[in-house]
C-alpha cells in the first residue's frame, strides 16, 4: 500500500513535531509513509471564508499531488473533512454553475482514500494499541470537524485508552466548540476568545497536565489561550502521544 502523509500547511510550517510523530508512529506500525514535497494546502481557509473559487486550484493541486497513492493520511480533522466532505460539494457547485463535471471528476478519486490519522489507525490498520507509553494525566477535546463532519466517534479515545501509563480524564463540555473556527477567531475575536476561555476553564477543572486533540489549529487557539492565562496546562497533538514509547518517550 502506497501511503502518503498530507501534513497540512499549518503543521508543516508551525508544528513539525506533529509531522515527525506521525512518521515515527506509522513507521513503527510497518507503514512506509511518503511525504510528497509538492503538497501545500487543502484550501479550507479559503473555502470557509467564502473564497470557494480561490480554493479550487488548491483542491486540484491536492488531487494532482496525492492522486497516485492508495491512502492519504492527515493529522487534522478539519483538513480531512475539507477533502472528504467539501471537495465533493465543490465539484457539485462547479457543475451547477454550468462549468461541467471537470472539477468533480478531478477531485473524486482522492476523496474516499483520504483518512484522518485516528481513522487510518483504527479502520485501515485495525489497531487500537499502538504500543505507546505516555505517563501523564490527559484530557481529550474532540474537535468539531473530527466529531461532526468525519464522525471520528470513539476512535481517538480507544487509541488513548490503550496507551500505557496514560491517565485519561473526561473533559466537561467536551463536544462544545473551542472557538477557533479559522478566520472566525479574527473576525469575531471577542466571542472566539470567550469560547476559548470557557474551554480552558473546563480543561483545567479536570486536573490534567495535557489537553489532547487531533487538530493543531484548534490546539493553537486553545494553547495560546492557556499560555496567556498562565494555566500551566499544555496542548499536545494526539500523534505525539501515540508516537511516544518507553524507549523514546515524548516529554
Amino acid at each position, binding site marked *: 500500500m502506497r501511503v502518503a502523509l498530507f*501534513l497540512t500547511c499549518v503543521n508543516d510550517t508551525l508544528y513539525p513535531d506533529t509531522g*515527525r510523530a506521525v512518521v515515527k508512529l506509522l513507521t513503527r506500525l510497518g507503514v512506509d509513509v511518503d511525504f510528497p514535497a509538492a503538497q501545500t494546502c487543502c484550501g479550507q481557509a479559503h473555502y*470557509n471564508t467564502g473564497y470557494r473559487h480561490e480554493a479550487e486550484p488548491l483542491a486540484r493541486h491536492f488531487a494532482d499531488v496525492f492522486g497516485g497513492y492508495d491512502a492519504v493520511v492527515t493529522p487534522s480533522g478539519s483538513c480531512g473533512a475539507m477533502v472528504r466532505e467539501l471537495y465533493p460539494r465543490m465539484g457539485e457547485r462547479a457543475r451547477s454553475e454550468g462549468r461541467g463535471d471537470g472539477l468533480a471528476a478531478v477531485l473524486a478519486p482522492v476523496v474516499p482514500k483520504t483518512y484522518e490519522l485516528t481513522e487510518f489507525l483504527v479502520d485501515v490498520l485495525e489497531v487500537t494499541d499502538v504500543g505507546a507509553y505516555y505517563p501523564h494525566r490527559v484530557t481529550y477535546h474532540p474537535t468539531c470537524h473530527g466529531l461532526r463532519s468525519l464522525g471520528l466517534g470513539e476512535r481517538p479515545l480507544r487509541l488513548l485508552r490503550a496507551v500505557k501509563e496514560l491517565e485519561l480524564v473526561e473533559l466537561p463540555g467536551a463536544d462544545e466548540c473551542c472557538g477557533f473556527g479559522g478566520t472566525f477567531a479574527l473576525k469575531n475575536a471577542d466571542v472566539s476568545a470567550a469560547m476559548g476561555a470557557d474551554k480552558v476553564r473546563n480543561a483545567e477543572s479536570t486536573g490534567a497536565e495535557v489537553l489532547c486533540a487531533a487538530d493543531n489549529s484548534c490546539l493553537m487557539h486553545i494553547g495560546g489561550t492557556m499560555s496567556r492565562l498562565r494555566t500551566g496546562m499544555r496542548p499536545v497533538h494526539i500523534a505525539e502521544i501515540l508516537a511516544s514509547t518507553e524507549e523514546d518517550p515524548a516529554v
Partner: protein
Amino acid sequence: MSGTFVGMPAFPAAARAAVRDTTLRGNLRHATHTIRAKRARAVAELDDWERLRQAGKRIKDHTLRHLDRYLEQLEESVTAAGGVVHWAADADEANRIVAELVRATGETEVVKVKSMATQEIALNEALEAQGIHAYETDLAELIVQLGKDRPSHILVPAIHRNRGEIRDIFTREMGAWGRPAPEGLPDTPADLADAARLHLREKFLRAKVGVSGANFMVAETGTLVVVESEGNGRMCLTLPETLISVVGIEKIVPTWQDLEVFLQTLPRSSTAERMNPYTSMWTGTTDGDGPRVFHLVLLDNGRTDTLADEVGRQALRCIRCSACLNVCPVYERAGGHAYGSVYPGPIGAILSPQLRGTGSEIDASLPYASSLCGACYEVCPVAIDIPEVLVHLRERVVEGGEAVREGSKVRLRPAKGHAAERAAMRAARWALSRPGALRAGQRLASRTRRLHPRTLPGPGRAWSGTRDLPPVPAEPFRDWWQRTRGGKDGAK
C-alpha cells in the same frame, strides 16, 4: 414596543458588548444549557428520530418545490371554509392589510398570539402608528413588550432576563398598560405567572380582534395550526370576533397527515416536551364557535427570493423550534440582540441575510457569526445544513454574483470592506499553488523567528489580544524530511 433593529451595528461590535455583560452571559448560559440537556433526553426517547428528521426534510422540500400549487390549493380551501385570503408581497403591504382590517371593525385594540411573522414585519409598531394598540399575550413577549425591549430568542424571547429583572419590569410597567402588578410582588415563577395571568385576563375578555401567526397551514383542508404552551394562544384564537393570521408562505404542509411528523419533532426540539400543552387548529369559521370572521394574510417578504437560491433555500424548511440557538456556542455568548433581527442564532444568521439581502452592515456580517462547529445542523429537526448555507452566504458577500431580489435577477457587487482580505486570500492561493513559494516563506519565517513580536500589529491584534502566538520552529517539516529522508538516516 420601541424595539426595531434598524441601524444595528455589525455582529462583532454588538457581540463584544454582550460578551462583557456578565449578567447576560450567566442568564444565557444557564438557560441554554438547561434546555440543551432536556432536548437531548427528549429526542433520545425516539428510536426513529433520524427517520422523522429526514421525513420532515422531505415534506418541506417537496412543498417548497411545488409551493405555487399548494398556495393556490390553500387559498381555495380557506375560502371554501369561510375565511378570506390576502396576499402580501412585503412587510409594508402586510401591515397595511392588517391595519385596514382592524380599522374596518372599528376597534382600536388587538390581542396577539406569539408570532414570528408579525415580529418580522414589525406589525405592532405599524398598528401603533394607526392608533391601534397591540397587546402581546405570550408571557415572554409580554415581558419584552412591557420592558420596551427586543426579543432575543425565537421561543423564549425574554431569555436574556432573569426573574428579578422580570419582577421589576412587571412592578414598574403593568399599571400603565392595564391591571397593575400586585403590591410587593415576589420574584418566584408562580407569582410572576399569576401576575401576568391577572393582567392578561382583562385583555382577553375585552378584545374583539385577535392577531396570530401559525406554525403550519394544511393545504388540503385550509386548516391553520398553532402550537403553544401557555393557553394564551387558545384564548386569542377563540374569544375575539375577528381573527387575523399573518403567516409566511413557507409554512404550508400538503396534507393533514404530514402534521404527524412535525407535531412530534417540533415540541421535542423546542421545549423538550413529548407534546406541547396546547395545539389549536381551526379551519375557516364555524357558526357559534370561535371568531365569526377569519382573515389569512399570506406573507412573502423575501421568501420567494430565498427560494430561488439553490443552496440557501433550505433555510425555508425551518419550523422555528430554536434548537439551533440553544446549542450554539456563539449565541450563548453573543446573545440574541447581536444578530440584529427577530431571528437570532444560527438560523437567523442564514435567514436574515436572505430575507433582507446582504446590503446592510449587520446582514453582511451575519454569515460570519459562526465558528462552523456544526452543532446547529446536528440538532435541526428538518436537517438544515446551516454551516453549508453560512459559507454560501460568505461567498455571496465577498464575491457578489447572481441573486434574486424582489422577484428579479440581480447581479450583486462584492461587499465593501473585504478588499484587503480578498488580496490576502489571492496572495495565499498564489503561494500555496507553488510549493517553492510556500517553502521560501516557511524558511523566511523560521530564520527570522527570534525577531517575531509577541503581539501582532493591525488586524493581527484580534489574535494576540487574548492568545499567545505559537513559536515558529527552527525548520519546517519539509526541510527536516528532506534533510533526514524522513528520519530514515537516523538523524533527528
